[in-house]
């Protein structure tokens, strides 16, 4: 009797310790990822390993300000990473590869430097080779100046352009739109009977017919979240960080001489017709994909999907063209 009682007591104790301890054990084994502003180290750790098809559990916390977490090119809702709180997250990857995770809430001038990688190992039956982006196949030099020699007198209107577009020598295909700048369209129409204003209107119509209201709205959302802090909410290159970038560029130029001499440029002004009329969507895609250009422009290739970049580009042209609602 005494032995049995002792045995049952031991069993009950073990069951309780097991029921409480097992989840605690697994929770404590989940890596806790700390987020700090980029100047103080960004993500720690910044390399995470996972396997295809296996759920990856993550715990995220912030050591200073509000950050966010999302994985690039993945259809996921970003989560907020708040100081003093732990956010739990489970991800499943269905393709092996190196994914980029990044901060989604602006946390300062170097917010975009807060990135890390998830190395997903394993094999996949789907071996689709990546295709080269359009600016590479078209051999566009995205660092060369691309200003349009002439600019429209008034804002080109897609509505007016529609009426001239029926008897035109150019094709209204997606490939044509992506490879040509509005100025090239304007130039190609120079042997027609249309006036200069009408030729710009046709370009506006072409640009509008290659996008949808949905794409524009998506582009606008992406722009507000990722671009507006530097390029400005109205696209004029006057975002809240523009002054800081200029100041940073001035100090860099002072400290670097000789071969390292560089010029820091301010964020691009999308309301400038010279710049936008001379830029083809393929050129803008290259700039967004790669970043750089001697500025603080981040590389977005590992974060945005191709579709997201085209939506964003469609929205950038809406600073120039009058689209019908």
């Amino acid at each position: 009797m005494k032995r049995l009682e002792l045995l049952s007591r031991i069993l009950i104790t073990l069951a309780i310790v097991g029921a409480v301890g097992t989840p605690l054990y697994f929770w404590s084994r989940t890596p806790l990822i700390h987020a700090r502003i980029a100047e103080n180290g960004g993500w720690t750790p910044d390399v995470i390993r996972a396997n295809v098809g296996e759920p990856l559990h993550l715990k995220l916390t912030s050591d200073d300000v509000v950050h966010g977490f999302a994985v690039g090119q993945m259809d996921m809702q970003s989560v907020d990473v708040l100081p003093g709180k732990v956010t739990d997250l489970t991800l499943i990857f269905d393709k092996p590869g190196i994914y980029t995770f990044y901060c989604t809430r602006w946390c300062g001038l170097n917010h975009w430097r807060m990135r890390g990688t998830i190395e997903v190992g394993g094999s996949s039956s789907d071996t689709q080779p990546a295709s080269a982006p359009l600016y590479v196949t078209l051999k566009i030099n995205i660092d060369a100046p691309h200003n349009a020699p002439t600019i429209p007198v008034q804002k080109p209107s897609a509505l007016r352009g529609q009426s001239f577009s029926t008897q035109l020598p150019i094709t209204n295909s997606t490939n044509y739109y992506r490879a040509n700048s509005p100025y090239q369209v304007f130039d190609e129409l120079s042997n027609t009977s249309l006036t200069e204003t009408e030729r710009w209107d046709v370009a506006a119509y072409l640009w509008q017919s290659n996008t949808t209201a949905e794409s524009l709205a998506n582009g606008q959302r992406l722009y507000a979240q990722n671009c507006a802090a530097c390029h400005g909410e109205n696209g004029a290159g006057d975002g809240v960080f523009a002054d800081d970038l200029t100041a940073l560029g001035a100090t860099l130029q002072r400290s670097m001489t000789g071969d390292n001499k560089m010029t820091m440029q301010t964020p691009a002004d999308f309301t400038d017709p010279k710049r936008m009329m001379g830029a083809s969507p393929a050129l803008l895609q290259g700039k967004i994909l790669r970043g750089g250009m001697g500025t603080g422009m981040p590389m977005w290739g590992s974060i945005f999907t191709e579709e997201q970049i085209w939506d964003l580009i469609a929205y950038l042209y809406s600073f120039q063209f009058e689209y019908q609602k």
Partner: protein
Amino acid sequence: MHSRFFLLILIIAGLVVAFVPLSFRPIAPQERTFRIGARQFAYSPSELKVNPGDKVTIQLVSTDVVHGLYIDGYDISIEADPGQTAALNFFADKPGSFRFRCNVTCGAMHPFMIGKLTVGSNQWLYRSIGLSIIAAISLFFIRSTRPSDRQLPITIY
């Protein structure tokens, strides 16, 4: 008799000072828009003055990290990321002075990121000044009256 009469006058004067509405011409409600810049760890401007009944719009522009703005008393808030101006619309229907504060943890000095919203003039400041003057006068008068009357006005004011 005299002291009773003075007492009555003082009580009436006190009630008048405390409760008579100060502004005889009501100020027409306006629409007011404030653009507040938020950075670590301050708002600029950090003091807002509106009239009761005004339709107030606060545009919050953050210039470094994510900041918020929560108005005490009104219990409303917004949150702004850099590059995404947030707007807060409300009717200033509660008079008084209210603290507004950052409600998104924005760094070490986050608790000290505060500002002030004043709705209407600070009437109770002027009223309490008036009441204390009356109290001072009453002390002066009660000196010359019987000791039994002395306690009464003091306990009232």
